[in-house]
């Protein structure tokens, strides 16, 4: 029994054998699991612990250290707004404020329809095009506050398009 898709399960099987110490696979396993399940649930903790052969406490000790691992479901589109130095100097906070306003949620909030969540994050590595945000694995850079509603609408449309037809 596994929580994961056959593909991911196979990938995790390979991962634990890859390092001299099985527990070295812990962080990548958690990241992949989060990508598929959406967050690190109790069940994820249990399965990862069991796959590596360490205690659940060990998994939690490591997982809670990393701010990019979440323990509650995020929105379908997780909006991460950088407010670190380059982005801050080029208006990152204005972007962040505009997202808060448009989505009606704050840091780590999720919209009631579950579509969006918002996070204020540290440098995401695109300082040269600051201010930048990351939505799931997509980047949007050189932003102005007025571009925010368009970005949101884009994802709304995407969600509708992807929704299974009734």
């Amino acid at each position, binding site marked *: 029994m596994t929580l994961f898709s056959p593909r991911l399960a196979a990938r995790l099987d390979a991962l634990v054998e890859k390092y001299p110490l099985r527990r070295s696979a812990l962080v990548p396993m958690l990241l992949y699991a989060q990508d598929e399940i959406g967050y690190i649930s109790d069940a994820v903790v249990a399965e990862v612990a069991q796959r590596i052969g360490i205690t659940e*406490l060990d998994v*939690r000790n490591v997982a809670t250290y990393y701010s990019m691992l979440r323990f509650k479901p995020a929105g379908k589109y997780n909006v991460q707004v950088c407010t670190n130095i380059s982005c801050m100097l080029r208006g990152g906070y204005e972007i962040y404020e505009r997202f808060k306003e448009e989505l009606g949620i704050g840091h780590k909030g999720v919209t009631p329809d579950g579509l969006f969540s918002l996070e204020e994050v540290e440098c995401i590595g695109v300082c040269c095009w600051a201010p930048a945000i990351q939505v799931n694995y997509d980047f949007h850079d050189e932003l102005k506050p007025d571009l925010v509603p368009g970005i949101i609408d884009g994802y709304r449309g995407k969600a509708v398009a992807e929704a299974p037809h009734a």
Partner: protein
Amino acid sequence: MADVTFIVDGKKLTAPAGTLLIDACRKAGIEIPAFCYYPGLSLQAACRMCVVRQEKVGKLQTACTTTVAEGQVFITESAEIAQARKATIELLLGNHPLDCPVCDAGGECELQDMTFKYGAGESLYTEAKQHREEQQWSPAVYYDRPRCILCYRCTRMCGEGMDVWALGVQNRGVRSVIAPNGGGQAGQSNSELDCEQCGMCIDVCPVGALTSGSYRYKTRPWEMNHVSTVCTHCADGCKVTLGVRQVNDGSEIVRADNRDKSGINGDFLCAKGRFGFDFVDSPERLTKPLVRNEAGDLEPATWEHALRVAATKLKEVRENKGGAAIGVIGSNQTTNEENYLLQKFARTVLNTNNIDHERTADYAAFASALAGHPGKAASLREAATAPAILLIGGNPTEEHPLLAWNLRTNVRLNRARLYIANSGEIKLERQATAVQHLSDDGYPALGAYLDLSNSAFSKAVLAEASLLVIFGQEYRGAQVASLVEWGLKRASVRFAYLGDYANSRGAADMGLLPNLLPGYVPVAEPGAFDAEYVGLSATAGKTQPEMFDAAAKGELGALLVMGANPVAKLGIDLIALNNTFVIVQDIFLTETAALADVVLPAASLYEKTGTVTNTYGDVQLTRKAADRAGVKPDFEILVRLAEAMDADVKRLVPFGKACTTADLGQSRGANSGEADRHSVWLAANSLEWKMSPFDPLAVLDEIERLVPGYALDRTNLFGGNDVATEPGFVPVSALAGPDLVVPAHDGLFTSGTLGRYSPALKALAQYQAAEVVETAVE
């Protein structure tokens, strides 16, 4: 390693190369402050309190990770170092609540002491402090995050020391918390502790972040007196320091630990030793003698009356039916002096050899097997130092927590090789070099199997130059003999045999056996006892089951039970005792006491002075810590009973000028109840204020004089150390049936009848049972 010489604060020091600087300094009397360093645990270097200046090195170095080498030069106190330490403390206090006035640790807190020393009383921080609510993790362990300084002593103690790994560190930076392993949701720190509940984590916490369910918010440290005595539970015999406070009807125990690391256990105590002292204050304690009235009910009575009733009846049975119609059952939790006195009372006053106790191991067989082979019995200390150990049977983690601790420590710190042969799976296999699983009846053949040397296990064991053989209750009678014989063929083998209760070994050593006198001297060949024990019969008496058979047949006129509960243990039919007059000395109204005609309320092991012998033969001094109005030590009860029977008390207890060299009362405990009773008795009998018949140490003299193997090192004994007995025992001709040995198999939270009266142990047992069910469901 070779010694090296180096200079600390201008002083030339010498230590083996590779010694940690902090240890080398401490040994030389130079104290270096440390929060995260804890001897015996892995290095953490997390707190930066131990910083020192090393010549020719750019930055301050942590003394807890610096190893000494030839020619190094260190400074451990200077303005620069004081400033660094002060800054560290200032950071630690950044989120610290400074609630010292109500904190359990206030007055004995390492953070408080260091703040006082380095004067970091003011802070540049103006930010609001992070607060978190205190959490209860289990009935025993509470965690107060704001007080935690993240030294990780607790996580390492639990993981490395206990091999339980129940504590972790979660989150990051100032949000870090120590988290237990059970309950709670992902992302939130857990809130339940599923572990052995030993309280070691609480013990090593340098501040008041981990507090104990039984001690928290109860007292201020300086309100307690401290009395060091011996744990009353399992047969390992940890030295325990009891924190005692005066109350209206005596004094109460509020805490048990062993922070001074003295004794065979260092700082170790298990849940029973640390929390299981509360039976002492149980409302169910017997505090008045009870005598069965005409209506058939037990009714409170005065001591005089109860003793008179008991004595009259004992005399009557002795005179009319003879001593053979009287039975005596002794205890596994009373002192050696009491056990010795009980059998002497039985043999010389009641004129009977019908004396026995609940046997949990076949110590007589062990003594007989070792007879004539001096230097082959191992102290518990050796489990922590022996290079190779063969553990056969038993389950130390559950039944001998200190032994398990010593073995783990030895493997971890000294790379000792632990070989385990067991019919079950035991947790210590995690530390084992090699494991051999046996069938349930495979124990007797083990020696022969090893000699065949046809497995990796037996080859490894046989290759050891010296071996400490520790074996469990699986071995009885002839099997003990053949195992010991197997070992004695080899050059350097020492033995330890695992029994169950605090003084089970002492009960056997002191002759609570129908056929053997103290020191396993057969009653048929009493030797030195002959001259001293007037009226000693040379025929063996009845064993415990035989006594109850006799009672059922109406042949047992009287039964005296001291601190035992045979009715529950043996499942005795209630009507079996209908025709027997039963006298019980106990702490509680046990199943046996409830059937008695006279019940005499006794003091517990924590309320009297004496000695006890652990299962390894190490003798230790118990001291009177608590006091309870109304009760008397079993020793005094026996003396008074003898006196009420018009026996010559002076023959029973060698007290007074001519008879003894025992001390003049210095070793009686912190409280004076005993001394008061002395003065009353002495005045009543117009004796010198010097020695009393209630002084158990007068009997210790006699034990040392008469009991083979008990020539004790008194200086060490009274200094609070364990002293080994040398079983230079007289050979045993008549060994009793091995079927009389019934192991109790008490676990981490049970302790025979006594454990049932400890609310703390009951709560822990219940809690852990629920945790196990929860985990199983998941």
